[in-house]
């Protein structure tokens, strides 16, 4: 599976994965709490500055970011058409800010480090009979699959564009599902070799 992780070292690489996850959780919640446009504009500006501070490490995520910006513009345009321009702007700002923070996390944190943090956070659940290591592994797999979905969608969409000259849209949903199911089976095969009996 492909990864957004950038080997180009930045200051954020030196910050621990646990601190990054905690800050992401706090800011993610804060973005939802505020619905004042000025506050959200300031938050988005801060997120943009923060993201820009990563410099060349952000290059692998350029396409994804373009898609997010396009989505934000579409949301704003749609809500403007529905006579709710401010609501559209608030939604687009939240989307952009949260995406910038999420992408920054993916660019600067190895999956293994995330897995270790999640496992330690979930370890109190062991007392209740829930295997925290399995749950942490599932969370990590989920994050990797989320990323993989976008990569596979892009490949299918590019192939569709080459054949027909236009985007595939919902027509790609079925082939994407089949591809992802096959990928998941390969992951299951690999897990089978690694997991204890």
């Amino acid at each position, binding site marked *: 599976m492909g990864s957004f992780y950038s080997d180009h070292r930045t200051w954020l690489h030196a910050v621990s994965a646990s601190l990054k996850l905690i800050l992401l*959780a706090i800011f993610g919640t804060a973005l*939802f709490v505020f619905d004042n446009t000025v506050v959200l504009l300031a938050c988005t500006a801060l997120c943009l500055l923060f993201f820009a501070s990563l410099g060349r490490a952000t290059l692998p995520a350029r396409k994804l970011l373009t898609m997010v910006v396009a989505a934000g513009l579409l949301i704003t345009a749609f809500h403007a058409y529905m006579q709710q321009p401010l609501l559209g702007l608030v939604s687009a700002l939240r989307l*952009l800010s949260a995406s910038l923070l999420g992408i920054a996390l993916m660019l600067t944190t190895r999956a293994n480090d995330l897995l270790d943090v999640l496992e330690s956070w979930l370890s109190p659940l062991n007392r209740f009979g829930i295997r925290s290591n399995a749950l942490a592994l599932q969370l990590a*797999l989920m994050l990797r699959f989320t990323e993989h979905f976008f990569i596979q969608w892009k490949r299918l969409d590019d192939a569709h564009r080459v054949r027909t000259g236009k985007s595939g849209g919902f027509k790609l949903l079925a082939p994407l599902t089949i591809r992802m*199911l096959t990928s*998941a089976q390969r992951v299951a*095969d690999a897990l089978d070799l690694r997991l204890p009996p």
Partner: protein
Amino acid sequence: MTSSRSSGLAYVSLFAALVAVFGLIPKIDLPLGVPITLQTLGVMLAGCMLGPKKALQALLLFLAALALGLPLLSGGRGGLGVFVAPASGYLIGFPIGALATGLLMAYLPVSSPRRAAVSAFVASAVGGVLTIHICGVIGLVALAKLSWTQALWGTLVFVPGDLIKCVLCAIVVHSVARGLPDWRFGGRAFR
């Protein structure tokens, strides 16, 4: 041969990711405070493809990731705050809807791609639409302080869109039934 434990881990994570991916696709807000998103399509697909137990696990995993603060809901929302928002009834309804869809899919006929598609439509309509909307209405009454009539009329706005999602789910199930003939829908014989 891959053990059911490994397959379970991988497929549960895959469908939790699918619901997350649908959340990253832009939402449309309605004045009621409830967004129209594609995430319920992920709930329907999880139920139809994985069966009740694994679908329930997939959606609980998704909610756990949300609670940890990951911005996986439409519009980049995440954190514990989303569980007390007006639309949180719908969110709590996701695992229940996936369970209901999976239970139905496990009993409906899937002997041919066409039958599997029809069964998927029925299971999605009952589990992914009816069940989630019942939870959503309860949430709107409890948290948004709407009357039962207001909440019921409000939720009806989403039904046509949700029925389109049921059709999409049936189309995907039909394609998977043709492309992966060994796939056992509703978790009948999880490999």
